[in-house]
């Protein structure tokens, strides 16, 4: 105690005996280090996804990376040498290749649009030496596997925007209205059922939601609206909405229940109806929270992979109709990463898409965390 040399730490337990016990200090140091893992992880994710995308700038792809070339090329060799497996006669139980299917099979319903886009391809030919130019990336044709690969991400941007828009347009109002209902109008019994119900919805694995859309929603909507393709942006958007609803509901509900009850009582006392109090007093008071809910919902819809992969039709088309099949960022990564040769241009482009996904989700999250939540706290503490 005399040798209280340990630096004063900022915690509230200032009465804790300062110790020069070495074991104690080692443990504390260890805990401090491991406590930072989450921060380190964020940096590592950005660093390593960027690292694989970097050859886009330097142009050093196509050949296996030099750092661990031997291992990479052998793994890549495994993938390129995989046998043709779509022959039903072949018995596949002995099959060991990591990925034994072609990406084309993803769009069972749409083989047409691919050729449509292929026809329009001929209008613009980038120079042969360097396929990854800015104009190539910003182009309108996504055709990564061909003798003249084209990595135009515009169709993917449009596809992602369409599905995200549909998901939010359907999911956010449903989630917010349901949360309003649960907070102000539902009988106590019903409210106690609603929360677990939404939790069940949140617990659905996304692959199951995708399967559900693939099996039922696609056909149902096709017969209802007469879409040309069974799987399209609208079906995918509905699937994503199912994933978005629980997020919007939960966060909105939290925000609404954080608003002081006295506001509601005051409003009711002034003669406003229940709905007016809920809609004009409580909802505006909780607005930052609701906004945060929608932003996080966008983040989820934007980054969701399996639903998009299974329910959107996966054709990289440029079109304005929500009845057309689309291909999203995440679905592109999910569908194509299994087939690419590690270190190739295609591989780097997919990681580049990953960087974009990361940056957007990070931004959405940072906005909610730093801006909205603080504002909500201030507002509710009588600012």
């Amino acid at each position: 105690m005399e040798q209280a040399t340990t630096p004063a730490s900022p915690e509230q337990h200032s009465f804790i005996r300062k110790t020069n016990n070495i074991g104690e200090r080692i443990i504390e140091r260890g805990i401090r280090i491991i406590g930072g893992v989450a921060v380190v992880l964020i940096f590592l994710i950005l660093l390593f996804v960027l690292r694989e995308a970097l050859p886009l700038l330097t142009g050093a792809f196509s050949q296996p990376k030099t750092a661990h070339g031997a291992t990479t090329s052998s793994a890549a060799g495994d993938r390129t040498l995989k046998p043709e497996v779509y022959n039903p006669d072949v018995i596949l139980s002995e099959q060991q290749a990591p990925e034994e299917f072609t990406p084309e099979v993803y769009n069972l319903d749409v083989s047409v649009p691919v050729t449509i886009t292929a026809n329009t391809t001929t209008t613009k030919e980038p120079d042969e030496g360097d396929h990854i130019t800015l104009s190539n990336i910003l182009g309108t044709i996504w055709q990564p596997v061909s003798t003249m690969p084209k990595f135009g991400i515009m169709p993917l941007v449009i596809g992602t925007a369409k599905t995200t828009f549909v998901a939010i347009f359907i999911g956010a109002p449903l989630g917010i209205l349901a949360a309003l209902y649960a907070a102000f109008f539902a009988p106590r019994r019903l409210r106690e059922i609603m929360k677990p119900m939404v939790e069940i919805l949140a617990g659905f694995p996304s692959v199951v939601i995708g399967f559900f859309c693939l099996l039922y929603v696609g056909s149902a909507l096709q017969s209802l609206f007469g879409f040309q393709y069974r799987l399209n942006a609208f079906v995918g958007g509905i699937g994503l909405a199912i994933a978005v609803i629980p997020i919007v509901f939960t966060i909105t509900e939290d925000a609404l229940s954080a608003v002081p009850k006295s506001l509601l009582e005051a409003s009711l006392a002034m003669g406003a109806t229940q709905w007016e109090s809920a809609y004009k007093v409580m909802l505006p008071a909780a607005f930052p929270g609701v906004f945060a809910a929608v932003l996080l919902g966008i983040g989820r819809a934007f980054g969701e992979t399996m639903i998009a992969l299974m329910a959107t039709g996966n054709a990289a088309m440029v079109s304005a109709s929500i009845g057309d099949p689309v291909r999203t960022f995440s679905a592109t990564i999910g569908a194509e990463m299994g087939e690419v040769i590690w270190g190739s241009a295609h591989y780097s482009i997919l990681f580049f898409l990953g960087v974009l996904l990361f940056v957007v989700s990070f931004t959405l999250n940072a906005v909610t965390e730093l801006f909205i939540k603080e504002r909500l706290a201030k507002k509710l503490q009588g600012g």
Partner: protein
Amino acid sequence: MSIKRLIGIFAVGVATVAVIAIAGLVFSTMGTFLVKGLPNITWQLLSEAPRNNNTEGGIFPAIYGTTLLVLVMSILGVPIGTITAIYLNEYTSAGAVMPRVIRFAVNTLAGVPSIVFGLFGLGFFVQFLGAGLDKTFGNTEAIWAKPALLWASATLAALTLPVVIVSVEEALKNVPREMREGSLALGATRWQTIWKIVLPNSTTGILTGSILAIGRSAGEVAPILFTGVVYSLPQLPDGISSQFMHLGYHLFVLSTQSPDVDKTLPLQYATTLVLLMLTFTLNFAATFIRSRIRSKQFR
């Protein structure tokens, strides 16, 4: 006045419709998969390996692979999550900079799309760590620098870290301050207090966190797509460096890439139901334990 009331009734009606729509969604999906899946669940399905290009036989290797995956994931992820929660709750005060940064990172981590975790797993674990391991051990062929169970588990552990941290922190907060102070007043050091007083009183919270993390990760397919999952295997995985089959991935492949989707439909329904049962049982268990903790709080 009456118009206002009408608007109110209409609006509440719309909100009710929204609730009914959500309820309909939950019950129709659950109902569909229960009705269609239950008749197809047989002992043969649960215990046998797939045959004939996965169109016949069972899904045992997928169940086995999923179980192994989440177990290794918990072994990797739960200790780190618990220690982070201990750091946040026991070693820092709320206003300090470091815990705020960590909390921000945890929230960000929770919002990163799962496919990005997959890319991270491929770029970091497989291509960087794996290749590094192979280099240090002088392996001529790739033993670690390829997708494997270990890397998939590590990726999922990173993905579920926020879940564990949040649950454990909640449990730590429920341990009353007086117990800590009592322990410290008797001369125990901080670590002794945590190890002997705080942690034993929050084991249920750690358990909840692990179960929630397992429930979340059992259904995740995107992060493992390129870090270790395969469609079919000749034998069960025999170590953490081998690849594995997975329920969710199995369902994905059967429903989208199989040459004859209709033929395997019963198998798809059964796989879905098994997967749903797995995740729901885990989620319900976690909810149950958590509600027990909350009701049994130390006054």
